[in-house]
């Protein structure tokens, strides 16, 4: 049998995200500094490091939640091609974060409207970009609830009545309904039971593959990045100390800190 007949398109698209010399300081303290990398369409990049290593600061700078002190975050927009999101106007940046970007918070309460039903949560981004047909919005919400394995009859329940894992899956549905191209995730499986984590990881992997998503995932869980991320950056004291293929960085770490990090993981 020849399966070579259906390869992915070989045309080499440019990077979706180009980060150049990014720095954020809190007064004299370094949040993150000298961060540069490219992210290509369909790639998943993991960022690991312990608390205070600057990984969340970096993620928030990339997603436009924090304004970096210097550097560029160049995103390949659908309409105007590569644009520096640090210097673009706020309306354009907020439009990006409603359409082409998604942000999955560690705590689903930060990413959901707890007083609004599951269907309303999923539909919000659709309505934000102009959907005005209730029936269509509801159909799309139902479709997305099923994709994240939430029963259709829960559509009118508020997320406060959901378990932690369901809330996280709802947050993912709410973020992906507009077909974003780049997803930022901050500890997406943190605070979940191990068994629930596994289901979420499988879900995320399937969505990333099927939708061709690019993602930047911040976590301190090395097992999560091994399963989700193609590439890995290791951060310490606001700097990237090592970067490369995820399995290479984890199996053949070059930097002393990475070696320490890898050898500190408890074996089950």
């Amino acid at each position, binding site marked *: 049998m020849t399966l070579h007949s259906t390869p992915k398109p070989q045309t080499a698209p440019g990077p979706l995200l180009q980060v150049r010399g990014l720095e954020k300081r809190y007064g004299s303290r370094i949040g993150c500094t000298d961060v540069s990398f490219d992210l290509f369409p369909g790639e998943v990049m993991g960022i690991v490091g312990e608390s205070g290593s600057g990984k969340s600061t970096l993620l928030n700078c990339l997603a436009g939640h924090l304004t970096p002190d210097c550097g560029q975050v160049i995103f390949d927009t659908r309409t105007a091609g590569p644009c520096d999101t640090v210097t673009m106007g706020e309306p354009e940046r907020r439009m990006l974060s409603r359409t082409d970007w998604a942000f999955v918070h560690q705590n689903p309460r930060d990413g959901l409207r707890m007083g609004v039903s599951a269907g309303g949560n999923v539909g919000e981004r659709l309505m934000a970009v102009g959907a005005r047909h209730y029936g269509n919005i509801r159909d799309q919400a139902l479709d997305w609830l099923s994709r994240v394995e939430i029963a259709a009859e829960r559509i009118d329940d508020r997320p406060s009545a959901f378990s932690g894992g369901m809330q996280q899956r709802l947050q993912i549905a709410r973020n992906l309904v507009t077909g974003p191209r780049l997803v930022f995730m901050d500890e997406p499986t943190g605070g979940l039971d191990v068994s629930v984590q596994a289901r979420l990881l499988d879900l995320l992997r399937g969505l990333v593959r099927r939708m061709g998503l690019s993602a930047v995932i911040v976590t301190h869980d090395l097992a999560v990045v091994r399963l989700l991320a193609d590439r890995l950056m290791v951060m310490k004291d606001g700097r990237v100390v090592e970067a490369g*293929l995820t399995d290479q960085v984890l199996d053949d770490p070059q930097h002393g800190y990475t070696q320490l990090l890898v050898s500190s993981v408890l074996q089950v």
Partner: protein
Amino acid sequence: MITVSDLSKHFTLHNQGGTVIPVMQDAHLHVAPGECVALIGASGAGKSTLMRMIYGNYLADHGAIVVGGVDVARAAPRDILRLRRETLGYVSQFLRVVPRVATRDVVAEPLLALGVEDAVARARAEDLLARLRIPERLWGLSPTTFSGGEQQRVNIARGFAHTYPALLLDEPTASLDAANRATVLGLIEEAKASGAAILGIFHDEAARHQVCDREVDVTAFTPVAA
């Protein structure tokens, strides 16, 4: 298809006094399409290290590893990822999967990653699982709860799902019964016949003699202790 030249590697243990351990020196080998080459040498001689370096799992200090025109020792991560997706397969001794994913999907995943249709990929996966005698009632379960031999066979099915032009096999017949061992050797013969370049570690001597065209002793690449 696989060409290794002047390859060297050492480990530096930063947290253990900066100990430097040289593990590979001036390694070189070549595997042509349709050829199966066995790596031999005592335990710790560096067989697995060499395999991992060819797969891009370990970094090389020096030298070149060219697989299907891509120099793994120098390629950007995404080029290595594409190489792994399309050209270079690897059957390791350990099955590493997301828990709770059905065996059928674990095996189909390399095909799905290439954009093969779900139904086609699943059919191929089920065909391989059947050949490797994994009972059909287990296909919908996660392989994490399977026995060692079953996990090994799932791993092999996954490694052979896509017909990679280059294939690395780490002890593919270990812990298999005679019937399954024969099936795996059959799969290797088929891959060879379809033009795959195969590099393997076989402790099973009979198997080695059956499928391998040549042997390369990695002891020759082991650095002389300083």
